[in-house]
């Protein structure tokens, strides 16, 4: 039996993907870093490392630590900056052959808008993934994504700059009610939602009695967060996205096909894999093939039949 018997293609706000598999920003570099390990052309879409207007050096070491069934990272949005991204990375992205979404971060709304406007001119880029888990320096450092009004404001500002690119807003789970934030950004014009980003967390060296990360806290990712992420996708789908017709890209600890299917059933149209790429980037292919096997086994001709199928007869 071959793939031809099941249709894995999905559409995110007009961007057609051959299959629902994407990469998580920050886990796969800018373009072709994993090319020796896995054929990236088999992905549905590629999401780049966060780009900021100017280059950022990132945090002091240690930046990563493994925790049980997961890891913490406090890289600090280290990236080459917009100009070097355009010069050095875009040509590599052009060779990928799959839709590219650029994750954009910043310190104030004007930063994001400037980057978004420049990316309008880059053909290979099909969309912006708005990283709102950044401190808003003009609001005393509160993260954009923790306040509905701020999240809505930045979404509207970047949306106004996106005439060609679609706007995906990546939600932070470090909030009281992620559905409220989702509603605010959908209201402000988000074309799609991606959730969840990492959970703020900490690991302590009990011998030195100090936090292990130089930044003190980091974002928790990996299998340990998956059940929370699945819950949040379900919640956002039922309370906001389904009725608004806004697709969700679900992520959080996906390592096997089983995990991805949980997200699809909960309401995600596409899924992204992050931490698992550090373990074995070839899992992208295995997950895609595993989803196809599941569809065949349940007699589904198309993946769209299982999106949000949780609770359905």
């Amino acid at each position, binding site marked *: 039996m071959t793939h031809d018997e099941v249709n894995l293609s999905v559409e995110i706000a007009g961007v057609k993907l051959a299959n629902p598999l994407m990469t998580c920003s*920050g*886990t*796969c*570099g800018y373009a072709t*870093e*994993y090319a*020796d*390990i896995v054929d990236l052309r088999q992905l549905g879409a590629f999401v780049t*490392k966060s780009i900021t207007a100017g280059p950022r*050096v*990132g*945090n*002091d*070491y*240690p*930046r*990563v*630590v*493994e925790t*049980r*069934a*997961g*890891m913490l*990272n406090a*890289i600090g949005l*280290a990236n080459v900056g917009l100009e070097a991204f355009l010069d050095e990375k875009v040509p590599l992205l052009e060779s990928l052959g799959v839709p590219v979404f650029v994750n954009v971060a910043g310190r104030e709304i004007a930063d994001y808008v400037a980057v978004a406007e420049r990316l309008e001119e880059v053909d290979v880029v099909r969309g912006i993934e708005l990283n709102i888990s950044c401190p808003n320096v003009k609001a005393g450092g509160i993260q954009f994504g923790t306040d509905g009004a701020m999240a809505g404001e930045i979404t509207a500002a970047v949306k106004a700059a996106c005439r060609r690119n679609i706007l995906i807003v990546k939600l932070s789970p470090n909030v009281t009610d992620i559905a409220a934030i989702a509603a605010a950004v959908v209201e402000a014009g988000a074309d799609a939602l991606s959730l969840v980003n990492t959970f703020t967390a900490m690991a302590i060296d009990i011998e030195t009695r100090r936090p292990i990360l130089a930044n003190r806290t980091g974002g928790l990712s*990996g*299998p340990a967060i998956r059940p929370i992420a699945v819950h949040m996708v379900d919640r956002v789908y039922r309370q906001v996205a389904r009725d608004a017709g806004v697709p969700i890209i679900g992520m959080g600890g996906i*390592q*096997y096909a089983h995990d991805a299917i949980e997200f699809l059933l909960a309401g995600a149209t596409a899924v992204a894999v992050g*931490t698992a*790429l*550090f*373990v*074995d*980037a*070839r899992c992208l292919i295995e997950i895609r093939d595993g989803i196809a096997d599941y569809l065949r086994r349940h007699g589904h001709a198309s993946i769209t039949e299982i999106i949000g199928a949780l609770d359905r007869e």
Partner: protein
Amino acid sequence: MSSPAPTRSKGAFAARVLANRSLGLDHYRLRLGVAGFPRSQPGQFINVRCGVAGQEGPQPLEWPEGGLPRPTGPELAGVQPLLRRPFSLAGRVDKDDGTVELDIIHHVVGVGTARLAELGVGAEVSVIGPLGRGFTVVADRPVAALVGGGVGVPPLLYLAETLQDAGVRAVAFAGARTARALPLRIDPSEPPSQAGWPTLCTAEFAARHTPTVVATDDGSLGVTGFVDKALLPWLDSPNVRAGEVAVYACGPAPMIKAVADIAAARAMPCQLALERHMACGMGTCQGCAVKVKAAGETGWAFQLVCKDGPVFDANDLYWE
């Protein structure tokens, strides 16, 4: 199983355990057979999935009909490693049939290395590599001083082989906390000098025609004290010409800093193989940051130990 195109510089491979030998005090030499492993250099490393291939992740729990599951599997009975663990290559042999035999020497320090210690001969293990930038043989220096501490010694074994092939005369300085923590076998007929004169006292270096000075912190073997101090009697002896020596070192941060200072004081080229906690090992997560000298306000920039290293020129590093 994946077979790489010959021009690929790195890949993911299914390796087979050929030997897994305890060296004492929780140190192990793991020998892996890897078909089609690309060319590699000393100083490079592999990123190893810790566990038997296909069984690294959580196994489904068996629910007997009408009963309760018995959680005896590793998922519930213990902690499983998630990320790969990086290990410097300690040696490489290319067989006629295209298989490559790789050696790593590791110390059990946590759940990942504990899983590796349990692997039996014939087990399949997933390996990514070769990774990073290795040592560069300094062409105009005919003498090489190899200085290693603890598990920093193994990559120097691979280097000793390469130096031998390049016609460079190498001398090794191997340090450990105590005799049993030294990941080398001592030739019983050739005990290490307590005064710091290199002899063919360690089997592995002797096989590569490299005389060795052994140093232990507690004096249980060889010279008493840190290995960087043990370097000095030989280095400053009249029959060693400073202009002929290049230094290559690997080990704990204070040790390699001390070696870098010794080399700098004598205008000797010095390369250091660094160690950092890693997640991806391939330059994507950007976790393994190290400061190097750079133009600009701060005078430094970050590079990555997995991609720009692990080997760095000592003069390029920004020491805080």
